[in-house]
């Protein structure tokens, strides 16, 4: 790291995703609350230091809120329906006796500290995964990742981004419809308002979707170009197969209970298929890239810091550190040092990544969208 000021620029999206993937691996491998909290803190710190002022930079906050909901639901379910773990009873819910055919499901009963803590760990893990994905989205918009995708995946990628943008659009349409209901003198709150809004909201969203499709088609999206259709299909098929295999392989490498053939061999086969697809796509290359993001030192630093976190947790696991602290009997979890050091390395992007350029300089002049 140097102290020399660098010109602000946006980092290559793949670097952010690699960094995020590293943190996700950590979160998936452990339920240790200290480690999970550390991951959350690191992600939050990096987002706070390096996000831009674009509208999508708020998605980290949104994912945190979603995380809280996840934890609450994850705790509420076992408390209401879960298996009764023996241990320190906190309180007892009135239990319902179910008929014999429903054996195995229990409703109510004693709620133990062990039960709640176990659920909390699980919920926290999921919430941290969601938060890390939100952090990556705050740091680079989904469209930028799409632009970095290989050609063979481009069209599927556009479809995915458009689908991703559908939800926020529905939210905008819903707000306008609610306002319009008020303008007509109808209730704008309560169940009646919701009932009356569903159809206009869906219609509005659908109209936007059709307008978008027409605009994309007019601008050459999905052109056949000069490539033979067979070649195109082969490249797309290879890419998909490669991604699936690589996904299975990556999971296998991480999860020791998966059969050996689904580990390294699957990962390698997937990588080979992807490489072949990329080569094919490169040969037919009838699409081009506008100002492709460079992959420079900062990108290496960010991606490697994510890798360091993943390696840290895997090494800690191999060395026998307790990644899943026991809840029965309940004990205070210890902090696995190697894993914690790895996660700490993932804070490097807060300095190593260049600052994001100002996207919406003040004064942001125009907001005529209100009515």
């Amino acid at each position, binding site marked *: 790291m140097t102290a020399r000021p660098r010109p602000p620029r946006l980092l290559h999206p793949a670097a952010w995703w690699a960094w995020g993937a590293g943190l996700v691996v950590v979160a998936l491998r452990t339920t240790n609350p200290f480690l999970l909290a550390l991951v959350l803190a690191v992600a939050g710190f990096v987002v706070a230091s390096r996000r831009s002022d674009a509208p999508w930079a708020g998605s980290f906050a949104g994912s945190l809120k979603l995380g809280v909901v996840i934890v609450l639901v994850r705790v509420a379910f076992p408390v209401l329906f879960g298996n009764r773990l023996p241990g320190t009873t906190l309180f007892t819910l009135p239990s319902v006796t179910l008929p014999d055919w429903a054996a195995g499901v229990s409703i109510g009963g004693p709620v133990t500290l062990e039960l709640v803590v176990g659920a909390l760990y699980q919920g926290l893990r999921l919430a941290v995964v969601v938060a890390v994905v939100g952090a990556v989205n705050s740091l680079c918009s989904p469209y930028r990742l799409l632009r970095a995708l290989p050609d063979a995946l481009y069209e599927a990628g556009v479809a995915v981004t458009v689908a991703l943008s559908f939800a926020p659009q529905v939210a905008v349409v819903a707000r306008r419809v609610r306002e*319009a209901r008020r303008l007509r003198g109808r209730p704008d709150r309560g169940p009646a308002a919701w009932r009356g809004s569903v159809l*206009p909201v869906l219609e509005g969203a659908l109209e936007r979707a059709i*307008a978008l499709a027409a605009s994309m*088609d007019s*601008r050459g999206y999905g*052109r056949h170009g000069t490539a033979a259709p067979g070649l195109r299909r082969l490249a797309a098929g290879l890419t998909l197969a490669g991604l699936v295999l690589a996904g299975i392989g990556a999971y296998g490498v991480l999860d020791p209970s998966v059969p050996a053939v689904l580990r390294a061999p699957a990962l390698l086969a997937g990588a080979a298929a992807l490489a072949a697809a990329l080569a094919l796509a490169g040969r037919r290359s009838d699409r081009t890239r506008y*100002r492709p993001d460079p992959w420079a030192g900062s990108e290496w630093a960010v991606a490697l810091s994510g890798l360091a976190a993943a390696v840290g947790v895997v090494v800690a696991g191999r060395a026998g550190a307790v990644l899943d602290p026991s809840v029965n009997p309940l004990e205070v979890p210890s902090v696995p040092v190697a894993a914690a050091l790895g996660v700490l390395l993932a804070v490097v992007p807060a300095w190593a990544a260049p600052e994001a350029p100002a996207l919406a300089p003040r004064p942001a002049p125009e907001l005529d969208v209100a*009515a």
Partner: protein
Amino acid sequence: MIRFDRVSFTYPGASRPALSEVDLEVGEGELCLVVGPTGSGKSTLLRAVNGLVPRFSGGTLLGTVTVGGRTTEDHAPRELADVVGVVGQDPAAGFVADVVEDELAHVMENLGVAPDAMRRRVEDVLDLLGLHEVRRRPLASLSGGQQQRVAIGAVLTAGPRVLVLDEPTSALDPAAAEEVLAALTRLVHDLGTTVLVAEHRLERVVQYADRVVLVPGGGAPLVHGEPATVLADAPVAPPVVELGRAAGWSTVPLSVRDARRGAGDLRARLAPLRPDDVPGARRAAPPPTSGAVARVEGLHASYGTVPALAGVSLDLRAGEVVALMGRNGSGKSTLLTHLVGLRAPTRGRVEVGGRRPHELAPRDAVRSAGLVPQDPGLLLYHDTVAGECAAGDRDAGLAPGATRAALDRLVPGLHAAAHPRDLSEGQRLALALAVVLAAEPPLVLLDEPTRGLDHAGKRRLVAHLRDLAGAGHAVVLATHDVEVVAEVADRAVVLAEGEVVADGPAREVVVHSPVFAPQVAKVLAPEPWLTVGEVAGALALLDAERPAPVDGGAR
């Protein structure tokens, strides 16, 4: 460049064709303006150029559309992207990327333009459309005018030989519209791009057009030819043309410059009269009134950290029509949403009829202030016009038929069984306005009501707004349409950066403003005439007093 060969098109389920037996040829390098009444099929004609009609609309198209030597029958819109660029009515609905530069590059990436050429063209288009300052900005943070320019840029970068634009300036303030039009003429003159453009605000475009295509609607054949010839007796015409007709000039002027050069005599004839002398003309001063219908005091509002209104104070009085003007984003819409209670003020006070609108229940709020939003379709929920009118009566507790009667005053003869979404922009506006007016609120607010309205529709809107004011309503319209302001407004309020920069009688505010002056005022300055109607009235008065002097162009 574009050839329509006996093209007929019928929308699915429609009983009459939207276009019938259209024969049209647009030559290389022409700027061709498509005009016609609301709902006459202009958009259909435009969208047929690259095959979006019928591929995205459904329906049956007979005949052939050929563009750049390719027929739309054999080529999907995406295969025509290098020849035709089509920009739709709502630019924001068509955006794919999230920042300006990427949006501009999208079409070139699809076409496989070489990276260095791509880079250069993006820079060219950024300069051409004046977008270089916002090149890295998220599209969602841009103003309407900037979004429109980005949408044009996003097809221009492909270097199409044909550009098709549907209402490109109707959402823009006068200055932004000038910029877009200047860019278009540059394309036509310097690059020889063929441009087919539909625009209701004829006065903005007609002076640049080489040819005008009149789509009369109702299955009548197209009329096309030289602008002056077609417009001399077209049902739609810009104010300068109407002024030429009223003054009896033998050749109709198309631009302010043409008209001004020939208007010396007219100015001299009108000099002894003032607009107030014309019977039926509006008074120069706002009518003396009982009191304020609505009062805004020191209103501050912001979106997040961005200020939208900074200390606005206004009194709105019964019986006056107030035009709210200003750039895109100057705070007009925000002020309207406060008056109707959609937002609570961050600082300051808003009172309508002595009560704070945001504290009212919806049912009471519509009785104190009614707002027709920019997209009037938002107010419409039902699947027939009749259903919408019946619901309007019910919502406001009126006698059955009241909403329908209000509607017929705006757009007579709208089919009761028609689906609101199948109506044209103007018909939808009329329907939404009728629904709002049904509750007879003392304060009537309209946000950009003339977007998508033809001249006949505007004339009816103006008459109706005058009636409303006459009946004691306070009417506020936020608009960029200076011609409508000239026709209807008693008072003009100009906002800039969330502050009131001018507030006074409309005539005084607009006559000397280079941006907000209507065409007639520009032609006749320094005489304070605003509309063709006033001039015609004054001429009639002069003719009645003494025999018409024989001057150069008089019949």
